[in-house]
């Protein structure tokens, strides 16, 4: 059984076809890439999977159950987490609270207990604060930044906080939306290591990662299978070697020499 299956999904915005008949099968412990020029529909696919946009047609299945019409909050609780192209960190909360937020739905107290019984709030807060620290540690965010507001951090570290936040949902499918955008080449190499580390740490949970990226070194290095999109259509699908030599891909996106 596939972990995540996208079946013939299309998305129309009025007359514009953003995604045209896209299908994808993801098994456990896979690392899949989606590439294509800007406007090809890559982030739209993520929006469709995570429930932020509604599909015009097609279905999406997660662990065999249909999730096409579920709300984003439900989908993230089921085990699909994502990062954002433009970060979307919570500015009013400090870094560690940003990561803790992903754990809040696991905290075991209800509204009335929160009001009338602070001790349980304190103990749950402590437990999940430690878990948040572990996530931040995994993505190598230095401890002195934990209580800062996210806007005070360098851009590369902010991206890692976004990643830690997504990981704190304890997902089985992780959608990474251009995690290397805005990073210098050294930071990109670090990021490749971190993604490998995440794969190893979460191997027991059968974590699969779907990566949307423009940086070819990351995609070719990390991914087992690559989907190539152009104007919403899937123009090629296969291993990195196959993609690199595919004529359609070369003329649409990669350029003649690669």
């Amino acid at each position, binding site marked *: 059984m596939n972990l995540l299956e996208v079946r013939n999904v299309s998305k129309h915005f009025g007359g514009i076809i953003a995604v045209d008949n896209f299908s994808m099968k993801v098994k456990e412990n896979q690392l899949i890439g989606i590439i294509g020029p800007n406007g090809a529909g890559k982030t739209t696919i993520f929006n469709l999977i995570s429930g932020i946009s509604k599909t015009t047609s097609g279905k999406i299945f997660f662990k065999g159950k249909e999730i096409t019409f579920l709300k984003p909050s439900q989908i993230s609780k089921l085990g699909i987490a994502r990062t954002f192209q433009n970060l979307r960190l919570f500015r009013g909360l400090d870094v560690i609270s940003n990561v803790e937020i992903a754990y809040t739905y696991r905290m075991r107290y209800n509204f009335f207990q929160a009001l009338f019984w602070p001790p349980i*709030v304190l103990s*749950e807060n402590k437990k999940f604060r430690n878990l948040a620290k572990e996530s931040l540690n995994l993505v190598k965010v230095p401890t002195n930044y934990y209580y800062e507001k996210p806007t005070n951090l360098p851009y590369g570290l902010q991206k890692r906080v976004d990643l830690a936040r997504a990981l704190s949902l304890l997902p089985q499918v992780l959608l990474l939306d251009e995690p290397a955008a805005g990073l210098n080449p050294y930071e990109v190499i670090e990021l490749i290591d971190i993604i490998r580390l995440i794969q190893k740490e979460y191997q027991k949970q059968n974590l699969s990662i779907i990566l949307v990226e423009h940086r070819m070194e990351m995609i070719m290095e990390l991914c087992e299978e690559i989907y190539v999109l152009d104007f919403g259509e899937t123009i090629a699908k296969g291993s990195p070697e196959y993609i690199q030599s595919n004529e359609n891909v070369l003329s649409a996106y990669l350029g003649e020499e690669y």
Partner: protein
Amino acid sequence: MSFYQGLIILVVINVIAVIGNFLLTGMTGLLSFGQASFMALGAYISGMLAVKFNIPFLLAILLAIIASVFVGFIIALPVVKLRRDYFALTTFAFGEFLKAVLNLSVTITGGATGLAGIPFKVNIWIVLISLIIVILLVRNFRNSKFGKECLAIRDDEVAARSCGIDSSSKKMTVFLFSIAITSFAGCLYGFYTCYIDPSMFGWTKSSELVIMVFFGGLNSLTGVIIGTTFLTLSLEILRFAGAWRMFVYVLIMIILIDFRPQGVFGNWELDWRTFEKFLHIPSSIIKKGK
């Protein structure tokens, strides 16, 4: 009871009502223009239960709060997932609707002539203890996961929803909690003045409650308490100045929001952080307890 005690009681009841509004707007960014009508619900229901069925004071208040929360749930259900403007205007329309209902139901509520004969049960100690309880509850709420989730929703609703937070149900929770607080203030009001009529809870009162939140500061509970106390006292004391006092009051509000939209007190809060600066307690000890 002296004049000053009466004044303090009215001020504290107002503060409790404004705290309800503060919780809603500060936590979710939703504006409610019907808070006075929830005060009316609390006052009328608890008053009628006491007058017509001789139900004891505390039980009447509890029943009134439950009923108000239920009504609030029904009117918020369609709008809590829509744009914020819709919420504000629906609560405003609800205020008008409730006024029409109250004026019509002459046999039950006394209509425009009001409900009289509510037993006098409220003294200064009851209001002060109520205030302290409400402050503690709100503080606990803001420090818990609900508080953090609401701040996240305010900052970026899309990202919050992708982190497992169901924003509509959180907004509803905060709204219902704020109704409970405001209708409680209304109950206290009824049992203090012993006479209520629909004109006391109109649109002007609702707007007053909203403006006071913005005066104190959207993010500061202490600021809202101090600000509301100051404003209510000034308005009472300046009553002799006639109709122009309200004009000047609103004009000052406009200018305040123009040039200091975060309110007089901004983000300042009277909590551990202020004590730490005041007594020079090292911040590491405070943070360890976090």
